[in-house]
């Protein structure tokens, strides 16, 4: 496999490049990432990470791509997002669903970084609910005509190729969708100005309009009508790569915090000598470990051709929340300095914030995963990744069994109405992904066994807490399981203000 040969070499060159040429502070201050920087990234081969060798790429596989994105994110999250988006959502639909002629035409240029890829699904009226996408791709002879506007297009400012999600009313059903490839230089494509963002400021985010844009019919990727599931397949890569970026942020935040608490002295001692500071750092190390273990488990699943969607979703949620929590802890341990931009940790927090929103808002992913568990569409098998026995594996089995019992009991009580008890479903989903994270820690091949076990224990504790929260709900009616009390309903519906007087 190219994976094993290429990865160490790429990583060695990458480390040198990051050390010498990448400074997150100045990248951010310079606005959108420069063409010169993009050219250097291309020279390292980073735009061809996931592209098969026969089209000039490195064919790394998901695990190898994750490893590179983690390295990039340790230095700069905007750069990691640019490269990760290109290699995941940007090129996977073309690799997996494109015809041979189309792949031969575009993939070599994408691998060389001559052309950078974007993925455009979101619209003004279609964010979490992509079934509402209004962009149309209608057949006209041997072409399709694209009409619509896409928002929040990452890489859009410099991308040469957009993969867009469009409705195909004349094929694949009235609400059928498909992914369609649109080259930037096609007449009718207009790229808007860069958005001003909280974080990821060196990455590009724009609106792109398509006015009567004609592309040959072979630019429709995959089967017309299968757009939604094709997008989900690409998101398996996208979410895992984004989670890998969060691992990089987690490592960087933990390194920065450790460095600070080792050197900063108060009360005549280094901060690291205080038990509560040590506890913060230990929690950070355990959390980072679990995040990394989940990403690696997803990488192994992809290599084996196993189902990836559950692990990608679990990694996306655990890593986006973990990265934000770790940045927050790193700021706390820096004290006032952490609040100043010069510390670097403030930027990490700003950069990490969006990961709980994009590629599927966490609340939405949790509700969907919870519904799948509740409808017994998702099986307990999916969260067991380890093979070891021993006391922790036995505890995993116990917690796993508790979750199944809680699910069965909830189904008995709520029946079909339970599929609308969103907070209950999210609690089940949280227990499920914590179990997957625990199992990933136990399955990890890291020599740091004590850390692996403690990280797994944290996740099992978390899973138990969510099962207790969910199991409390069945005692109430399905409506109450929404956990919105009548006074809240009244308050929320009554006035636009949320002012509260005690």
């Amino acid at each position: 496999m190219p994976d094993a040969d290429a990865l160490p070499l790429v990583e060695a060159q990458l480390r040198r490049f990051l050390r010498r040429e990448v400074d997150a502070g100045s990248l951010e201050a310079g606005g959108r990432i420069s063409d010169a920087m993009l050219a250097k990234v291309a020279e390292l081969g980073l735009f061809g990470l996931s592209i098969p060798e026969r089209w000039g790429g490195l064919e790394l596989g998901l695990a190898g791509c994750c490893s590179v994105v983690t390295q990039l994110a340790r230095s700069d999250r905007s750069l990691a997002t640019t490269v990760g988006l290109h290699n995941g959502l940007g090129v996977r639909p073309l690799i997996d669903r494109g015809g041979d002629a189309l792949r031969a035409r575009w993939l070599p240029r994408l691998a060389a970084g001559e052309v950078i890829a974007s993925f455009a699904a979101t619209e003004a009226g279609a964010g979490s609910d992509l079934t509402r996408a209004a962009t149309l791709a209608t057949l006209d002879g041997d072409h399709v005509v694209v009409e619509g506007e896409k928002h929040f297009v990452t890489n859009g400012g410099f991308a040469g190729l957009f993969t867009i999600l469009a409705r195909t009313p004349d094929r694949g059903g009235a609400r059928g969708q498909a992914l369609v490839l649109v080259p930037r230089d096609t007449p009718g494509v207009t790229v808007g100005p860069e958005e001003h963002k909280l974080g990821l400021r060196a990455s590009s985010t724009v609106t792109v309009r398509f006015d009567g844009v004609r592309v040959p019919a072979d630019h429709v990727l995959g089967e017309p009508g299968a757009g939604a599931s094709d997008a989900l397949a690409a998101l398996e890569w996208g979410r895992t790569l984004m989670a890998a970026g969060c691992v990089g942020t987690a490592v960087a935040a933990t390194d920065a915090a450790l460095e600070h608490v080792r050197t900063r002295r108060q009360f005549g001692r280094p901060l690291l000598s205080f038990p509560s500071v040590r506890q913060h750092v230990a929690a950070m190390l355990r959390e980072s470990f679990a995040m990394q273990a989940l990403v690696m488990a997803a990488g192994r699943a992809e290599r084996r051709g196993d189902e990836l969607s559950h692990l990608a979703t679990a990694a996306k949620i655990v890593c986006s929340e973990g990265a934000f929590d770790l940045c927050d802890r790193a700021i706390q341990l820096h004290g006032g300095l952490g609040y100043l931009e010069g510390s670097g940790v403030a930027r990490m927090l700003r950069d990490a914030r969006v990961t709980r929103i994009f590629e599927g808002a966490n609340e939405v992913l949790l509700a969907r995963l919870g519904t799948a568990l509740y409808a017994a569409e998702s099986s307990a098998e999916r969260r067991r990744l380890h093979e070891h026995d021993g006391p922790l594996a036995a505890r995993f089995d116990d917690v796993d069994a508790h979750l199944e019992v809680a699910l069965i009991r909830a189904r008995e009580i709520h029946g079909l109405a339970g599929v609308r008890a969103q907070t209950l479903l999210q609690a089940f989903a949280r227990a499920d992904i914590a179990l997957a994270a625990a199992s990933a820690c136990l399955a990890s091949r890291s020599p740091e066994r004590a850390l692996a076990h403690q990280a797994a224990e944290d996740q099992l504790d978390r899973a138990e807490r969510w099962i207790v929260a969910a199991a409390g709900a069945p005692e109430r009616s399905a409506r109450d399981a929404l956990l919105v009390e009548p006074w809240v309903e009244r308050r929320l519906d009554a006035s636009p203000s949320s002012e509260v007087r005690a």
Partner: protein
Amino acid sequence: MLETPDGRRSRTIELIAEILEVQVDTVRPPQRLREDLGLDSLQSLELLSLLGEELRLELPMEEALELETVEDACAFVERTVAANA
């Protein structure tokens, strides 16, 4: 209106249109919940759960997962009414 099969059928179709925020005359029995109406299997569960509440029916979840068309949903409601009678 919900006492007769025709009444239940129109209410089912009306509810589907309400949930999808589309005109009621655009929802037709042969349409597929997924490809034509853009509902995936989990969203169709939500739809059926609302139907169950509105029509005061206990709809079994296992069968709910197997519905493919608007017609299936109407027939499913009728079967459940008959079974409960």
